[in-house]
């Protein structure tokens, strides 16, 4: 190897040393979070974040052979339960209400449901998933087909909020005579 090659090689190594030095040698503060986005996605959800959530119902209900039969749309809301006697809101007890319109795929039939009088029994949070158990009253209107009673009391349901983004409403099938099919009702937050 000639002198020129040595010089070039040494200059290249010095340049590389500068890059390595630039990468590692600085006043870095390790105590600062490096990614708010990550911490946000990994941070467990707390009860207060579940309160006051609301959103829309966006779901399909299939018939027995798995073919979409009904389009479910509507709104839902979670609020802190208010004690009427003291006019105070609970920090852990919640109230869930929802209105759902079921329209047949061919657009010829339509009726409405309302979930009301939610009786909260239990809420658990696992990381970013909140599971709320309770019973509800299901009020049905414009039902010309007599498939379901106008009002059903104490219908058990499990509400699952995932990542504060989506909602899954599992209604006890037997209590509603499988009116909502074999799958949960899905929706979005916001």
């Amino acid at each position: 190897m000639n002198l020129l090659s040595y010089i070039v090689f040494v200059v290249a190594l010095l340049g590389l040393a500068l890059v390595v030095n630039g990468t590692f040698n600085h006043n870095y503060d390790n105590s600062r979070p490096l990614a708010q986005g990550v911490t946000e996605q990994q941070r467990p959800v707390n009860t207060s974040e579940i309160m006051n959530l609301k959103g829309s119902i966006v779901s399909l209900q299939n018939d027995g052979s798995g073919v979409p039969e009904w389009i479910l749309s509507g709104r839902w809301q979670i609020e802190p339960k208010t004690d009427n006697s003291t006019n105070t809101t609970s920090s852990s007890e919640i109230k869930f209400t929802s209105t759902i319109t079921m329209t047949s795929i061919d657009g010829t039939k339509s009726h409405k449901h309302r979930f009301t009088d939610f009786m909260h029994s239990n809420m658990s949070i696992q990381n970013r998933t909140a599971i709320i158990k309770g019973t509800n009253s299901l009020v049905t209107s414009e039902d010309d087909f007599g498939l379901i009673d106008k009002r059903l009391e104490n219908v058990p349901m499990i509400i699952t909020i995932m990542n504060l983004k989506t909602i899954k409403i599992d209604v006890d099938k037997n209590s509603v005579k499988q009116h909502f099919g074999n799958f949960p009702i899905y929706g979005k937050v916001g």
Partner: protein
Amino acid sequence: MSKKVKRWLLIMIPLLLSAYSHLWNPLGFPAIHIDEGHYMRRAMLVLEGMGPQESAATGYPRTYDHPYFGQLFLAGALSLVGYPGILNPDSSLSSIQELHLVPRILMGILAVIDTFLLFNIAERRYGTAIAVTASILFAIMPFTWVFRRISLEAILMPFLLTSILLSLHVRDSKNIQNKALLKLESKYQINGNVLILLSGIFLGLAIYTKIPAFTMIPLVGTLIFFYSGKSVKKVGIWLVPVLIIPLLWPLYSVLVGQSDLWQHWVLWQSERDPSETITFVSALTNFFKLDPLITILGISGIAFCTIRKDFLPLIWISPLLIFSYFIEWVQYFHLLYIFPAMCIGSAILLDKVQKIIARHFHRIISYSVTLSIIATALVITTMLISLNVNTSYYQVYATIAQEIADTSNNKVQSNVTVIGSHFWVWDSYWITQYVLDMPHELIDPHLDRRFKEPVETNNVLFVDDPIFLKSISRKINSENLDKIKDLYNKSTEVASFTDNVTSRETNNYPYNTLSIMISNEGHPTGKVAIRKNY
């Protein structure tokens, strides 16, 4: 005239053209891209001794999205001229423009260096005639304006081209029969192994700037293999720096105990969902719309080379195109790597056409095709680079800086939150925060879509544009948003401007470039008002 002088005169033609197309009116064209603000902010952090890895607490929340050489190089080059201190920066319009001018001139100089390197690559491989045409095309074809922006692709390009050039200079000493020549070469030329290592170092630095540069490994690796006499060992030597230098990035994350974050953001970057407007097909379409001539000539030229069993241009472009096809989230400027290959392919085709014409007609006529393409490209590029599309950008920026500085009371507002669209919040951050040392908070509705960050300062400065207004008019159950709306309603307008980026936009080429130039970066157009509540 000696051969050497003639050669240098020939080199000067593309270099002068390149200097014109990349250094003329750098403030006016092209529109400032949101990423320019990001890269300048990171360079400022390096200059302030904060290192190349920014924290989400003080900077952009999407950390570990790119390796570090981009900001290290920018900071190093800018510090050589004493930037930003040498400009005595303040919040005036002229100062804001000067602060943008210097890095854009640096990018222009890099593009001129690229032109020089491309000339040498093409000359080494195909001869001087093709080198002149290829480098002139690189210098003045309309797509070349993309090099005027502060982008990672433009920063890494000289390193990539140097790596390619060095690989073409690797010699197989075993096959040099003339021992006297070998002795002479060994005295005045750089040793083959050193060249191989240098080529690897330069490609390693290019990948350490932006990961997709790894798609150039097949090209340079193949050149090293064949130019070194099909030596696998030499390819192995070359691969060492190519692989080790980019590993500094994950190594850094391991050393600071954040390898999980590194993995998260690398996956985020590689798995970004393509939108309707950001797809591989739309990137190719925009490439064509921005420069139909080089697209047609380049593809035809590369096909012509392939038919002639010269696979260099094909190996140059195919790995990146295949990678982009699978990545899907691709924009037109991500295809910058293939532009030099398109120029070389075009030059080879034009050379062939020229020779055919020369055979049947006069030699002077044979140059007419190439010259008319060059003349057309020069006119189109001139039409574009003489536009001033950033006038209102600098005015808005200066107003934000002045309002944070609160020059009326001759003091810096230390407790200001800037709220606006993603584009303005981040593009206006690096100068105010790091150059003018006016620390302020910011709220970006694009990244904080549900307005989870509360306003924690008494003073709020709004950059009000159509995108921002849309973001705060969304129906979101958020007390923070309610407060922001309240503050917004109580704020008063201190200045308003009309964004002029697309004012010359027409469907006719080349002015269709203007909307493509700002596509997919959330650049608000229309009225931009500055409002404050203090």
